[in-house]
């Protein structure tokens, strides 16, 4: 089964905010460790015990792609991930504003935008997430339903946080 039959599912209910995903992501992509260098970023509200991994959901009809003035946002067919071409990106951050999750992050050094590329079909963050908050599963109907359900969950968390 090729990689684009699989999706990254986020379940914020299970996230404890350990941020191992950020460490492995930055080490894999950048050869160094740093939360700011990670494609997945955990937003935490320590006062209410809530942690939410924010990561590109590779939307079916990505608003970032539409918002990008330079066509830097492109889908990789083999994995289904929507990524930024750093050669084309001008760092305008339009994608950040267009994204309903605020998933794109600014690379602290190049100032270009970066999002999850699903590590060419083998997401490393999943390897160190023993809580199950991040899972890479088959894109069966059920997985898609769950993905939808938990995306809705994030919206509900937002509401709670804003209250």
């Amino acid at each position, binding site marked *: 089964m090729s990689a684009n039959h699989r999706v990254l599912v986020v379940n914020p*209910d299970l996230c*404890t*905010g*350990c*941020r*191992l995903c950020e*460490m*492995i992501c*930055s*080490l*894999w992509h*950048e*050869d*160094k*460790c*740093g*939360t*700011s*260098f990670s494609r997945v970023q955990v*937003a*935490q*509200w*320590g*006062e*209410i*015990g*809530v942690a939410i991994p924010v990561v590109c959901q590779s939307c079916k009809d990505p608003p970032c792609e539409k918002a990008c003035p330079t066509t830097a946002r492109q889908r990789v067919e083999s994995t289904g991930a929507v990524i930024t071409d750093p050669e084309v990106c001008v760092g305008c951050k339009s994608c950040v504003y267009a994204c309903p999750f605020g998933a794109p992050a600014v690379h*602290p050094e190049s100032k270009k935008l970066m999002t999850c590329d699903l590590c060419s079909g083998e997401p490393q963050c999943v*390897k*160190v997430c*023993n*809580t199950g908050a991040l899972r890479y599963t088959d894109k069966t109907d059920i997985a898609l339903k769950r993905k939808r359900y938990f995306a809705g969950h994030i919206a509900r968390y937002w509401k709670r946080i804003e209250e």
Partner: protein
Amino acid sequence: MREKSSGWQGRRLRIDLTKGIIEEENLSSSYLRDWLGGRGFNIEVISREAPEGLDPFDPEAPLCFAIGPLAGTLAPCSSWTSLAARSPLTYPCTYAYEDMGGHWGAELKFAGYDQIVIKGRAEKPVFIVIEDQRVEIKEANDLWGMDTRRCTLAIQEKLKEREAKVLCIGPAGERRVRFATVVNCFSWKGGRLGLGAVMGSKNLKAIVVRGRGSVTIDDPKGFFSLCHTLYEKISHDPYAQILGKDGTLFPLKFIELGFFGNQNVRLEEDGLKSEDYRNQHFQSRDACFSCPIHCGRYSSVKSDDAHFGGFGLEDLLNLGPRIGLYQWETILRIVRFCLLMGLDTVSMGGMISWFMESGDILYNNEMVPKRGDAETVFQFMEGIVSREGDIGKMLGEGILRVAQNLGKGENGSLPVVKGVEEASFDPRVRPGTALSFSLSPRGGYLGLLGCWEIPEMAEYYRPRLEESIGKTISFPLTRNEEIKLIANMETREVAASLVGVCPLIVSRLYTYSLPDLSSVLQKLTGMDIAEQDLTARIEKVIDLERLYRGADGMTRDMDTYPQKYFHQEVPSGKWRGRKLEKEEWNESLSLYYRIRRWNGETGLPQADLLSKWGLKEKRGKYSASP
């Protein structure tokens, strides 16, 4: 010029609050290699810069925060912070350290520092903001008086930065309660032995860190695969799994073995059931930075309509059964109060239980808490935090100083070890564990628990212990073996602090072995630090810490428990008739000193050890060579 070093940032931040001076000091690679980090950096600075006898509240007394090379990396459980200062609680006052979990340490690394040393006293309340090597001292008049939760939120709001990691003190620290702690990121307490009071004495309310930098790695591929192997090892460790599932409350089922609980605790019969906590108060799991275990517990307190993090075994035992309380709701309310005020729960529980028994020594009985009565407990705690009136002022000093104040300090029955409130544990039940507690520089502290004595855990421990002391063993252990293991456990605890890893996973569960630590350090730093080099640094730190305390007068005769335990037998229950034996105690102590190669009479390192570690005697006190 700063040398490029992988793992460390190679920078120490020095802040003088009296003069408002902020300085950066570069740390050479040989310095980093010699002291590694954590307790190593801290004792090195304190032994050079804080003369023995210095009042912990003197503006010149340094307050240090250090992290290890592994902090802020993929290495599992690796973002612990070591705090150190001269403690206002120990008797005599001397060097005290504390290792603290949470997220603050990793953020400090990303902000570009390995250590912060704070001296001086600000004229008015201030807080320090460290943002990617931009450091500022800001006014904190509006924050002074706030509890730790409100203060953290107010600072995040003020800086418009929700990712800022706030370490702060509560009202207890501001008012120099001698057992005040610091709290980082809402949930993690640190600084038992009054390091929060030291921070308060500097008029320093908080240290806020935001770091967007990174940690460079010498061999990224090798480090990646080793960290992943360690991650798998920890994730599949049976007791790490139990710890993740039940939190630090998991040993509750072993409570009848007498490892903890000052009286004959029967939790279940008295209504303190673990499943009630799980069903009614457990909200979610919480984790320190880069930890795959997730032992933190986020709990709800219904009557206060509140939630809080950081509830653990010690909190439960000290503020529950120890003071006659067996309702989760009440205990959680009290623990939350301590977290908000920045009070240490072990000392607090010790204080309350002592006053419940001996409160009549106070001339105002209205203040005395009553066993099992939560409202009187709250009133007592509020009295301590307020430090108002004669009694309030006095109570904030801890058991020993209150008793001294009232002329009752010398009778050998005070529940203190080295001046510090003893842990919730009867030493007569487990003399081996008691010895390890008494050796701990932190007074009686549950940190060096001999879990291998728990029959259910014995088979888990056996191979790990055999590897540690290099011979086959069978249970029960001989005294010789037991003392060896106590020393080994202490060595591991220091190892954890030097590299910046969770002490629980290194010295209680033995999941990280010393060879693991040395290989992960080598991949990270590129330095050739073999296991024996690591051991040598650990021993140097243990020796130097002991020497420093020795100069303050903390010698062999203080490695003991209150005398009453040598004379009075356990009056009733399963352990009836047990007491500590003086002769046995002394033999065990001598055995321990022999392992450390310390002088049997003084309990201090010998002169040849000093030269071995390059330590020198300076004006009658010992110090690291500069």
